[in-house]
């Protein structure tokens, strides 16, 4: 099995698929797979996947990829980068192999129904939740200060705040969005949002195999970015951050972007005088996959937590590069029923158990998927009754509130 095999008159499905993997950055490294199985071992759902990464590569080499296409357990992949982070040959398993496999399954129509709904909603409304696109800025209504949209501002603005899907629409996550707005206000940041002109970043749809949909959404966002003058983009959503930083440039959409935690960490000295003691709190931090493993941002969130008076930061067993996935990535956010049917466990409960094990009062998060996922999970884990789930933005805003 070589790259030239695909150029033979009748390449097999395995040949065509294998060759297509070379188009991904460093994709040719798949040739060096040692079949060590580390990827399949570290995969949080590897034990119930018919074809965890290592085995999938073995089947490709054996010219039997059609067996993979008949399986639905590829949909258990939460695109968490755990396999990619441990691969001794540094094969891009998550962005290459697993994502391409989902793309093939999607084209074959082998897609769980609940995922189809999220994709259809993203296509129709520009958000996976199926909410009205006109109401994308409705969350701003509960604030006692104005959040300007670019359309209203009609002037160049320093920062474009890409709010994102769940921060805009999900009632629980809106609380973190409002907290972020307060922090930006205290910092005196000159910012505006796109409001109804913003569309889903599309990254989780891409990782769920819907590349065409991702491109469609990216083009819409690129067009909106291009209409206005600003210096940089910030977002609280690691998935949006990943898309704008690493994927949009491949489509010719080039804008500097920072995650909210990086942006505020750079200005922490300005914020510190406003931060008041929140009382003694044992806080542990969950590294989101798309901030941590996918983009190597580990320190700014910890720096922010460390700046809050009263916070004692403790680490869970799995942290930084070996952080556990909340189960929401790569389409997992829209596959809860499917995952439950296959696994009868939730990855989010595993994480909550770890937070309980270190006797934390607060599980701090930095991704909009997490407050609802972890709060649901905390209801199911014994001893998690007093554990609070808070976005870092909420903890900062709480500390600011003490001042008033």
């Amino acid at each position, binding site marked *: 099995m070589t790259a030239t095999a695909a150029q033979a008159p009748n390449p097999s499905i395995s040949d065509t698929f294998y060759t297509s993997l070379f188009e991904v950055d460093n994709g040719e490294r798949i040739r060096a797979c040692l079949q060590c199985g580390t990827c399949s071992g570290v995969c949080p759902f590897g034990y119930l996947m018919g074809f965890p990464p290592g085995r999938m590569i073995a089947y490709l080499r054996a010219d039997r990829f059609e067996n993979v296409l008949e399986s639905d357990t590829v949909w258990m992949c939460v695109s968490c980068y755990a396999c990619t982070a441990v691969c001794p040959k540094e094969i891009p398993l998550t962005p290459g192999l697993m994502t391409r496999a989902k793309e093939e399954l*999607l*084209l074959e*129509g082998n*897609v769980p*129904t609940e995922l*189809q709904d999220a*994709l*259809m909603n993203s*296509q*129709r*409304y520009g958000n996976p939740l*199926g*909410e*009205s696109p*006109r109401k994308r800025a409705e969350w701003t209504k509960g604030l006692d200060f104005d959040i300007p949209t670019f359309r209203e501002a009609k002037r160049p603005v320093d920062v474009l705040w890409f709010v994102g899907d769940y921060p805009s629409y999900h009632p629980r996550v809106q609380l973190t969005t409002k907290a972020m707005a307060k922090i930006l206000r205290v910092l005196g940041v000159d910012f505006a949002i796109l409001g109804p002109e913003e569309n889903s970043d599309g990254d989780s749809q891409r990782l769920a195999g*819907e*590349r*065409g*949909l991702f*491109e*469609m959404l990216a083009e819409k966002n690129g067009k909106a970015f291009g209409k206005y003058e600003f210096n940089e983009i910030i977002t609280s959503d690691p998935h949006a951050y990943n898309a704008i930083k690493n994927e949009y440039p491949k489509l010719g959409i080039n804008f500097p972007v920072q995650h909210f935690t990086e942006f505020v960490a750079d200005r922490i000295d300005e914020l510190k005088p406003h931060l008041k003691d929140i009382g003694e709190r044992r806080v542990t931090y969950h590294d989101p996959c798309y901030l941590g493993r996918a983009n190597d941002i580990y320190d700014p969130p910890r720096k922010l937590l460390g700046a809050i008076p009263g916070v004692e930061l403790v680490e869970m067993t799995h942290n930084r590069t070996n952080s556990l996935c909340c189960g929401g990535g790569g389409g997992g956010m829209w596959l809860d029923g499917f995952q439950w049917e296959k696994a009868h466990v939730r990855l989010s409960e595993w994480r909550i158990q770890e937070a309980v094990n270190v006797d934390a009062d607060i599980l701090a998060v930095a991704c909009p998927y997490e407050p609802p996922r972890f709060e649901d999970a905390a209801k199911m884990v014994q001893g998690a009754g007093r554990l609070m789930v808070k976005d870092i933005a909420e903890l900062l805003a709480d500390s600011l509130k003490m001042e008033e």
Partner: protein
Amino acid sequence: MNIVVLAKLIPDLVEELEIDDSGTALDMTWLRLIINELDDHAIEEAILLKERTGANVTVLAPDIEGVDDILFTAAAKGAERLIKIVGDYESGVNNHALARVLTPVMKDLQPDLILVGVEAHEDLDGSIGPLLAGYLDLPFIGYVASIELEDGKATATKEYPGGLSVEMEVTLPVVLGIQVAEEPPRYVAVSKVRQAMKTAEIEELEAGDFDLAGGPTIDRMYQPEVSEGATIIDGSLDDIADSLIGIFKELGVQ
């Protein structure tokens, strides 16, 4: 075997509906349109029948904004022929008028089977399936949940309230009102729809004048009005909970 599916675009309830200045119709300015969900099921059922029997599938739709998308999506699912009916829809149309316009079109297409969603939320003058069957002088079965085709006959499973299903055999051609397809409507990748946009062709047919006779005359269209006797408790969650507890206590709940 020729299957023709009729699909309509209707107001998407994801946006709040507003009444226009005349007070007798919806304000279309901000309205989003979406394929009638049951028509989407009718398309799916047609594609499933095509996969089982090799039938040809034609999808037909009134030419309203967004119609190209639903037709190309149908093509990406496997429909062979796409037709949109061009006409003056803005001045108002009803199912009676639409059925009359579609009657000669349907006759030309010589379908063995006409599938249409059994109802749509904007059907003010009855659903279109029976009207169409009436004008075409064909039998109609509504609330159909599955179809078997054999030797010029269809066996349709019709759903009744109370969990009853009945199988009915009918000689083709026939109009069937689809309640639900045998499988949920499939998702097609955006790349496949974009492909269809490049390769598939949409034929255009003129509707001619709409004759609204038989439809209703609307005197007044309005939002549901809050009736008296209900108390709406406003305020924060805590305030609402406090008021509720007060009310329960007052009513003597222990």
